[in-house]
């Protein structure tokens, strides 16, 4: 029986035609890159078609359950269902969770009814890996490995195995009103002192200078306060990394901001939404790439740009933006890990058109593959181009894989005590270090106790 033309094939063709058309309109270099990807894809398409032709009929196809958290943007659900329907090697059932995805997922992974393939922010955590809930995805990236952001792949690798494939890159940064800075005669702040001064200078009766979240940035700034001081959660060899004076000084700047009158606190919507910035309640706001559609669409659409979190001072630390990736993972309870892995490879490594579509057609994300990010139309100019540059130059992955949730809770508690309650940073961070060291020891012990290859199923 010959392979019939099914509707999903037509879908794919029209998508391809669409992208080819769009490609023609952009610069020649980008066009070449597009052509490069398309031609690189052709053999794999031919292979998969040949495989499909030789396969038993669709009734015998294995079934995969794929879970997504509810992306807020219109059309994403239909899009991912479309990708799933276009997969020929297995029947993929998409489940979509408008709310409470994390707890639904963690409960389901304890049972046999959970998903085969699912996404998680920055992949599975270390305890999920050590307890064998997920299988390694070694070899899934294939030749494309060098096309993925290296830091992100390192973040998703543990014990020499890759545990998830990044789907899209998200990041956060400071958004600012260009005209307000210009009117106040300010340059874009590059040090913490300049940021504190700018926040103060931009504060008026009706508008604050800076919005870092209703908790004063205690939640979201965990990484930035360290990178700003030239430190990180862990050192390169995996030891606790931030008990030094520069970090204490960096915390001192946040405390200074918290006590100043220039920080917006108690806004109706928190930092992850652009509302405070759009309602003109603040001149500078910490927020994420996902707010770009609303920002570009607003009255400040031509008047904003983005900047990284500044370095502590001219000689210490670097500017930083935290990046994270919803990443696709395979459950160890799946019937046949190879089938699930093949699907992950197909959707998140091979099908570059779907990846670009997923990242840029609905909300606003950076495609995980560098070549796609550089080719994406929407990332070519304006604040989006600045954001892409920040991603290339200043990106830090949010939390290292060895930084466990227990250590992270201890650290966020310490941040509250230092920034909001004025506790001594050296003392608080020493307490975090004690807990983090225990956790690191626990993981090192778990590494030898539960061997990762035993979980490959």
């Amino acid at each position: 029986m010959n392979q019939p033309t099914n509707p999903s094939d037509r879908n794919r063709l029209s998508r391809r035609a669409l992208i080819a058309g769009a490609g023609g309109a952009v610069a020649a270099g980008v066009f070449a890159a597009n052509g490069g990807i398309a031609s690189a894809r052709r053999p794999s398409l031919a292979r998969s078609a040949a495989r499909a032709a030789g396969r038993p009929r669709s009734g015998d196809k294995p079934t995969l359950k794929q879970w997504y958290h509810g992306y807020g943007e219109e059309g994403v659900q239909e899009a991912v269902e479309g990708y799933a329907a276009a997969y020929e090697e297995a029947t993929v059932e998409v489940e979509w969770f408008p709310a409470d995805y994390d707890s639904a997922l963690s409960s389901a992974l304890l049972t046999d009814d959970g998903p085969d393939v699912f996404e998680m922010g920055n992949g599975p955590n270390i305890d999920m890996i050590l307890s064998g809930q997920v299988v390694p995805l070694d070899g899934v990236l294939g030749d494309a490995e060098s096309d993925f952001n290296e830091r992100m792949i390192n973040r998703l690798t543990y014990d020499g195995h890759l545990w998830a494939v990044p789907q899209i890159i998200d990041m956060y940064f400071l958004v600012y009103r260009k005209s307000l800075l210009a009117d106040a005669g300010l340059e874009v702040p590059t040090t913490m002192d300049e940021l504190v001064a700018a926040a103060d200078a931009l504060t008026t009766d009706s508008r604050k200078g800076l919005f870092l979240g209703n908790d004063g940035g205690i939640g979201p700034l965990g990484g930035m306060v360290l990178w700003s001081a030239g430190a990180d959660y862990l050192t390169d060899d995996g030891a606790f990394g931030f008990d030094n004076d520069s970090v204490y000084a960096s915390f001192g700047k946040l405390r200074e901001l918290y006590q100043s009158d220039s920080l917006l606190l108690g806004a109706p919507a928190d930092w992850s939404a652009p509302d405070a910035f759009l309602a003109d309640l603040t001149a500078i706001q910490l927020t994420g790439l996902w707010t770009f559609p609303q920002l570009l669409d607003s009255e400040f659409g031509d008047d904003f740009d983005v900047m990284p979190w500044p370095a502590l001072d001219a000689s210490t630390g670097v500017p930083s933006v935290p990046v994270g990736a919803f990443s696709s993972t395979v459950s160890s309870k799946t019937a046949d890990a190879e089938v699930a892995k093949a699907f992950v490879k197909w959707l998140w490594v091979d099908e570059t058109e779907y990846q670009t579509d997923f990242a840029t057609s609905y909300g606003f994300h950076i495609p995980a593959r560098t070549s796609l990010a550089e080719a994406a139309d929407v990332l070519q100019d304006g604040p989006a181009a600045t954001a892409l540059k920040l991603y290339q130059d200043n990106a830090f992955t949010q939390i290292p894989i060895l930084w466990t949730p227990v250590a992270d809770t201890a650290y966020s508690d310490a941040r509250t005590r230092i920034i909001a309650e004025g506790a001594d940073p050296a003392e608080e961070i020493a307490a975090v270090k004690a807990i983090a060291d225990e956790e690191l020891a626990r993981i090192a012990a778990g590494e030898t106790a539960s061997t990762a290859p035993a979980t490959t199923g």
Partner: protein
Amino acid sequence: MAGPPARSLKRRILGPQNNNMWFWVFVGPFALGIVVFALAPIVWSVVLSLYEARNTITPTRFVGLANYGDMLSDPEFRSSLYTFVAFAAFIVPLTFIFALGLALLVNRAGVAKAFFRSVFFVPVACSYVVASLIWKMSIFNGLPGGAANTVMRLVGFDSRAWLSKPHPPLYWIVIVTERLWLQVGFYMLLFLAGLQRIPVNLYEAASVDGASRGWQTLRFITLPQLRATSAAVLVLLLINAFQAFDEFYNLLSNPGAGTYPPYGRPPLVYLYYIALGRQQDFGHGSAGAVLLTLLIAIFTLAQGRLLGFGKRGSYG
């Protein structure tokens, strides 16, 4: 001899007029539900509390009472218990006084009695999550235009960030007022029921004996007669305070960053982050839950002893 004993066994099982059978027909489904959805999870969490159970509910590594030791020596768990004490110290007496006061007023209302009863009871139907959003986003937001800040400025104070700063701990005002608004109607109803069970002839006798209608009647007739209701209300209020979760979580957590401040963190919120949040540590979480259950049981029994709850069933 073979026939009659079999019959009588069947008879005995079914009971007179098949009473036993009907008992199980009616009670069975609920009993089964309690076993499956309440007892089994409780037993299982006691089992889990004795194991190292990270990211699994079928653990294999028995650790004895180590999880209990860890929880009892965990300063954050102990501090969450202090948070509970602080919360209970506000919410229990406040709800009690407001509920009793409202019940006395509504009971005396000459006109529109049904209206007043409903209007104070309506908030009970509101969800904690919805109320938290309203409290956080519109009433107690930190903007000068927020409802609470508008009032503050009218009476000559600066506007402030109610939920964002631990010093001074204004977040307690937000949390306590929300719960008060949500639960006072329910306890008012309990007091109303108690009030209506007080025989009128007691008031008539008191009146004949020359008791004044106000304070003396309340002090010597109404309050003693409401003793059982009061005891029940206090026990329920305390248990509910122990179980506080929704308003704290929705008012104070930072969902965008997945963090929760260590101040104002009651036991259930702390255990939620350990067991059900990112940590997925069911061993420690269950040990904490068992400890919390024991505490609630001890408090309830002690309170029952002190107040005589459940001893006598007569008036009120």
